[in-house]
């Protein structure tokens, strides 16, 4: 029996797949929905922001419109507006009849012109085609025939129905020439009528413009009509990506897109296309006060945007962050580990400025950064850390010396080449060829002459740089002359407990290190003698200290400047004789230093060469080898040109400043232990003391710290968080507390913690003492840490296009350079340089007294417009303006405060003069305007004005009479010609208060009459028929003032009081 065939399974199964299909399709639908959601909302958070903004903005505009309309109504109802409106109406009415006449004629002319314009092409076509035939015809007879035809055709007639005044149409037959001339006449007439209309309207339009201005000048914010326009554009508002394409400077006319910023997609209030600069959106105005998720405000610093138009600069170049990212706030702000340039935190926003403005010391709109950079300089961070632009005189000096060698080499080569060329010329076959060689020699000689001139300048520059080169701390070669021996170890232990405001940071030194360092410094100090000084008068000294200007830089107790040391405890540490010499001339050096021999020269060196032991600016060469010597102390403290007596008085006062009896300092016999010296020498190098101090044997020592110029762009992995890495990533601070902003594993976190406590990253490490981190504790306040952190964060090799970096030339560069000098020597201790920032002296209690206010050194806001740059240069060089009489101010001898001698290098003087001139937009070199000389009659008139009881110029201004000058409050007119600029002088005469608020010089001496200024007081008789400008007359008089003239005036003046009633001391 055959086996039954095996039952095959039914190929058509009835197993249902609907379950999986259902699940799959559900999944598909869900993921589709999810994808769609993500596409439209999930990855587009800006859509939500924009919709919210649209609603908020619309309601804000609605409210604003109401407010503005109300305001406008008020203004329209005002008297002034109504008067103008009346005028406008009258003007319109006055022109109405004439206007309708002109309009009627205009209408007619246009209709007539229309008819002729239709006809003209036909006529012209006919005639010109015949003329063309005539031109191309051959043979005289053919030409004659055609000529006749042309004339015939020109006769026409060309018919037209021309509209008339009475609205009828008149048939006119024109010849061709008539037609053309009529057509031209009508066109001219049309133009004439149009210009008549605009003339007619001129007055009415003028009044209308006045009306407009009246309204807009008095209305704060936009017009209601403008707001309405904004509303309608807000209605058409599209939710869309808003982006800025930052373009490069075009090369061959084609700019490239270098950056795309989409920040405004969320920060929509910043979009200038949507919100014009007249509208300011704040959170309060939009009704979202307190919300942290409403990025709708306008930029808080519109002045800054005026000079950094976001359309040109974008957002992320200044703020950091990833301008392209739109999918989330975190990504847009770049605050994740894949983005190297995260958004700067709010308190460090100024860091963005540093990227392009690294060369600027002072930035108006970046106060945090400016403070940070100023602090970096003031505390002497650059003593250990190189930072481009900060105290780089030593580098410049090396560069200049290199350049000198280079140029000398070229000169030598040129000389050889000159000799060769001349020889070839001598031997040349023809005279022409010889001349070519001779000319070549002459050209090379001209080159060498230029090199000679340049070498001379380079030599001066190198000399100047040696003078410019300063140290942050005092010269430690002179410790034996200056200091109480026992004080040194006390100071090294912790400078901040002894003097909390000191620049000197605290080094983490063991006891034996302190002893070794003290011993080395003491034993390596020079042992010359300095003259002994008799005691002075401390009471007089105190008065001098407080009035000569010392307190612009120094403080005693809480009062005074913070630029230089607080002298409160000077008496505990210093040697009186040394302080007297220092006050008399801080630049006086005990022994000159020879950078070539690398040692201090002694009297012995000079004696060997048979020279007197004299060194100074005039004897600045080494007697051994002729090299330029360091002949002054490397301090910025200037010479106040005090007498020895004054110096003794001040020193005697300072020696009374003590808190403890210095005899209570523990004895320090170890300082004489020669065994400690070597270890001390090693430690000086190890801790980099020579970065800030001059120390024997370490004059040329380099910086020991890391360079910080581009510290902000150092990869995070190269910032050594050491054992704190994990804590930083988890947001736990070194002291174990929680970081307020969460994780701090970033540049900001590193800098802040390092600056707060430089030893922090040694935490938990097992290290040999000498391997520990060396950076000392700078003792900074939180705001100081913020400033420095901001500076470091921005100090990066920026990814920003080259074109944006601020590298100005000309006057802008002069301003940039000038601030460094101003900061270096602390000009702002005594002088006000910016209208918004008082000098240190201005803030001192003494100068709050009205009489003492007159004793303030002159403010220098706008000084470039006032002072002749040539004079300025002389003054900066020698503020006494005298070679013999140094114990005085050159101009304002009545001031107790003394303008000191800074021993500026020529380069520094040049920079300062340029700086002041550039700040006042004055070009250099200065070409003084010609001052018209006075006629004899004018001179007599000017004299009368000058001595007039209503303008007692010589009461306040110095006259040269010693008794009077002691109580004067303004400079001698004799200085005007060389010192001042005439145009400024006239502006000053007219309104001094506007130029210098608070000045003793009164405003209102002149009043305007027609187109000239005349004296406000009763004018002397002679002025009745004088037509000139009185202020101009006075200026010209001042600029031609002579000593003889002054004597003549003084003879005429009623006797000067000169009794000392204005003496500030009297009032104290």
């Amino acid at each position, binding site marked *: 029996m055959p086996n039954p065939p095996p039952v095959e399974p039914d190929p058509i199964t009835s197993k249902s797949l609907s379950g999986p299909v259902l699940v799959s399709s559900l999944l598909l639908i869900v993921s589709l929905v999810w994808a769609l959601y993500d596409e439209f909302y999930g990855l587009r958070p800006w859509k939500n922001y924009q919709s919210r903004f649209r609603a908020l903005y619309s309601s804000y505009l609605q409210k604003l419109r109401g407010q503005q309309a109300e305001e406008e109504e008020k203004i329209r109802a005002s008297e002034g507006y109504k008067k103008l409106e009346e005028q406008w109406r009258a003007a319109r009415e006055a022109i109405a009849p004439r206007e309708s006449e002109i309009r009627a004629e205009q209408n007619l002319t246009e209709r007539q012109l229309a008819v002729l314009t239709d006809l003209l092409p036909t006529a012209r076509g006919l005639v010109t085609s015949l003329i063309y035939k005539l031109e191309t015809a051959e043979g005289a007879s053919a030409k004659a025939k055609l000529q006749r035809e042309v004339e015939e055709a020109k006769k026409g007639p060309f018919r037209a129905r021309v509209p008339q005044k009475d609205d009828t149409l008149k048939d006119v037959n024109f010849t061709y020439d008539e037609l053309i001339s009529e057509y031209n006449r009508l066109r001219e007439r049309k133009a004439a009528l149009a210009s008549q209309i605009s003339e007619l309207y001129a007055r009415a339009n003028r009044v209308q413009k006045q009306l407009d201005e009246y309204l807009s000048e008095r209305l704060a914010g936009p017009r209601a009509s403008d707001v309405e326009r904004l509303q309608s554009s807000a209605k058409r508002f599209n939710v869309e990506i808003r982006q800025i394409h930052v373009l490069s400077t075009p*090369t*061959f006319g*084609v700019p*490239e897109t270098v950056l795309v910023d989409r920040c405004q997609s969320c920060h929509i209030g910043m979009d200038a296309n949507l919100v014009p600069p007249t509208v300011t959106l704040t959170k309060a105005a939009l009704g979202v006060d307190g919300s942290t998720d409403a990025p709708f405000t306008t930029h808080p610093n519109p002045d800054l945007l005026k000079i950094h138009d976001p359309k040109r600069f974008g957002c992320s170049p200044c703020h950091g962050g990833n301008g392209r990212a739109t999918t989330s706030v975190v990504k847009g702000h770049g605050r994740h580990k894949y983005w190297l340039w995260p958004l700067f935190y709010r308190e460090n926003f100024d860091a963005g400025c540093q990227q392009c403005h690294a060369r600027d010391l002072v930035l108006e709109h970046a106060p945090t950064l400016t403070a940070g950079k100023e602090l970096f300089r003031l505390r002497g961070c650059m003593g250990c850390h190189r930072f481009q632009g900060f105290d780089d005189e030593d580098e410049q000096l090396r560069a200049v010396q290199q350049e000198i060698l280079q140029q000398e080499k070229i000169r030598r080569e040129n000389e050889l080449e000159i000799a060769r060329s*001349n020889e*070839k*010329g*001598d*031997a*040349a*076959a*023809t*005279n022409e*060829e*010889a*001349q*070519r*060689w*001779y*000319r*070549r020699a002459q050209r090379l000689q001209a080159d060498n002459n230029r090199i000679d001139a340049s070498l001379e300048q380079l030599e001066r520059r190198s000399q100047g740089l040696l003078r410019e080169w300063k140290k942050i701390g005092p010269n430690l070669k002179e410790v034996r002359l200056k200091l109480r021996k026992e004080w040194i170890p006390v100071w090294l232990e912790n400078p901040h407990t002894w003097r909390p405001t000191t620049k000197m940071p605290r080094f983490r030194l063991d006891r034996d290190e302190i002893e070794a360092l003290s011993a080395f410094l003491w034993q390596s100090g020079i042992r010359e003698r300095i003259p002994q000084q008799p005691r002075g008068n401390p009471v007089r000294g105190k008065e001098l200290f407080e009035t000569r200007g010392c307190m612009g830089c120094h403080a005693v107790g809480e009062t005074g400047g913070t630029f230089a040391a607080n002298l409160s405890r000077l008496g505990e540490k210093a040697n009186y004789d040394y302080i007297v010499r220092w006050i008399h001339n801080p630049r006086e050096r005990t022994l000159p230093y020879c950078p070539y021999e690398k040692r201090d020269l002694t009297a012995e060196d000079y004696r060997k060469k048979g020279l007197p032991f004299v060194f100074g600016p005039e004897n600045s060469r080494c007697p051994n080898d002729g090299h330029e010597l360091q002949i002054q102390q490397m301090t910025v403290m200037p010479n106040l040109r005090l007498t020895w007596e004054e110096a003794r008085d001040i020193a005697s006062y300072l020696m009374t400043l003590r808190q403890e009896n210095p005899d209570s300092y523990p004895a320090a016999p170890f300082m004489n232990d020669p065994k400690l010296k070597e270890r001390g020498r090693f430690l000086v190098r190890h801790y980099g003391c020579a970065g800030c101090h001059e120390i024997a044997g370490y004059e040329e020592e380099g910086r020991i710290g890391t360079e910080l110029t581009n510290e902000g762009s150092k990869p995070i992995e190269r910032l050594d968080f050491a054992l704190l890495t994990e804590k930083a990533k988890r947001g736990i601070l070194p002291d174990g507390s929680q970081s307020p902003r969460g994780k701090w594993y970033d540049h900001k976190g590193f800098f802040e913690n390092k600056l707060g406590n430089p030893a922090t990253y040694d935490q938990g490490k097992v290290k040999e003492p000498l391997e520990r981190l060396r950076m000392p504790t700078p003792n900074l306040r939180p705001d100081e840490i913020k400033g420095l952190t901001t500076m470091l964060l921005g100090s990066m090799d920026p990814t920003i296009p080259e074109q944006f970096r601020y590298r100005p030339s000309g006057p802008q560069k002069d301003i940039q350079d000038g601030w460094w000098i101003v900061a270096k020597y602390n000009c702002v201790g005594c002088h006000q340089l910016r209208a918004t920032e008082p000098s240190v002296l201005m803030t001192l209690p003494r100068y709050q007294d009205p009489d003492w206010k007159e004793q303030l050194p002159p403010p220098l806001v706008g000084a470039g417009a006032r002072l002749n740059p040539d004079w300025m240069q002389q003054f900066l060089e020698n503020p006494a303006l005298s070679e013999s009489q140094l114990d005085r101010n050159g101009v304002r001898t009545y001031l107790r405060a003394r303008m000191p001698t800074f021993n500026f290098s020529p380069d520094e003087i040049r920079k300062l003069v340029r700086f002041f001139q550039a700040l006042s937009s004055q070009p250099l070199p200065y070409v003084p305007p010609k001052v018209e000389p006075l006629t004899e009659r004018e001179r007599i008139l000017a004299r009368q004005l000058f001595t007039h009881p209503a303008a007692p110029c010589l009461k306040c201004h110095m006259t040269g009479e010693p008794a009077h000058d002691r109580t004067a409050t303004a400079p001698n007119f004799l200085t005007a010609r060389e010192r001042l600029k005439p145009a400024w002088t006239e502006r000053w005469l007219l309104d001094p208060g506007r130029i210098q608020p608070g000045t003793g010089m009164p405003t209102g001496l002149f009043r305007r009459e027609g187109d000239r200024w005349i004296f406000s007081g009763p004018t002397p008789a002679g002025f009745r028929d004088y037509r000139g400008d009185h202020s101009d007359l006075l200026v010209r008089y001042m600029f031609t003032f002579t000593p003889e003239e002054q004597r003549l005036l003084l003879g005429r003046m009623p006797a000067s009081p000169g009794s000392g009633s204005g003496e500030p001391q009297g009032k104290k």
Partner: protein
Amino acid sequence: MKRTHILTIVLLALLAVVAACKKEAETPKVEEGPAPAATTAAIDPATAATVSGKVVFKGTPPRRNRIRMDAEPNCVALHKEPVYAEEVVVNDNSTLRYVFVYVKEGLGDRSFPTPAQPAVLDQKGCVYMPHVAGIMVNQELHILNSDPTTHNIHPVPVNNRERNVSMPPGAEKLVFTFPREEVLIPVKCNVHPWMKSYIGVLRHPFFAVTGTDGSFTLQGLPPGEYVIEAWHEKYGTTEQKVTLAAKETKTIEFSFTGAGGD
């Protein structure tokens, strides 16, 4: 973008070429053409010929200007007699003094040794001695100051290099040489404007300056055809062609015409 790159490259290349051209232009080109067939044969004294003659002056001799040395008392003291300008000096025999006569053409490329004997130009009584002189190229010209005053010696050549050197009284002699032929180089003293001298610089020794009898002699010339030129500081130059046979002695006469002559 690419296009701008190519454009840049092309431009740079062009610039480079231009720069290269400029550099070349800067160094004077030395023309090293083939030297003309030289007649360098030594002169045989046995066949040497001579040209001699005199320079005649026609017309009325102009009055000689008197030199006022009042500005320099040191010089005034050195002269007992009045001093007259040496610009035009007509001798008693109606010949002209201070005429420089020399062979201008005809010697081909012969070269002549530089005389070891220096020429001398003295400054004496604020007058140059001699007033006109000839020297050979690279021959030393010794300049003396015999005056108790400071002179400066300032030759103003066209083809040679210019110099101007101060000579205080009692100064060491100065040694000048002129490497290029030039007829004639004026020499002046900027302190004493009346002082003038003329130095003729030639590559050969065939030159003479007329003296008190107005005569000149050029001897030792090889036979040949010559152009002889006479130069006078005021009356300019005049030349004559001369053909000399071996051992021949030829006499020629130059003449210059002053005002009033015909």
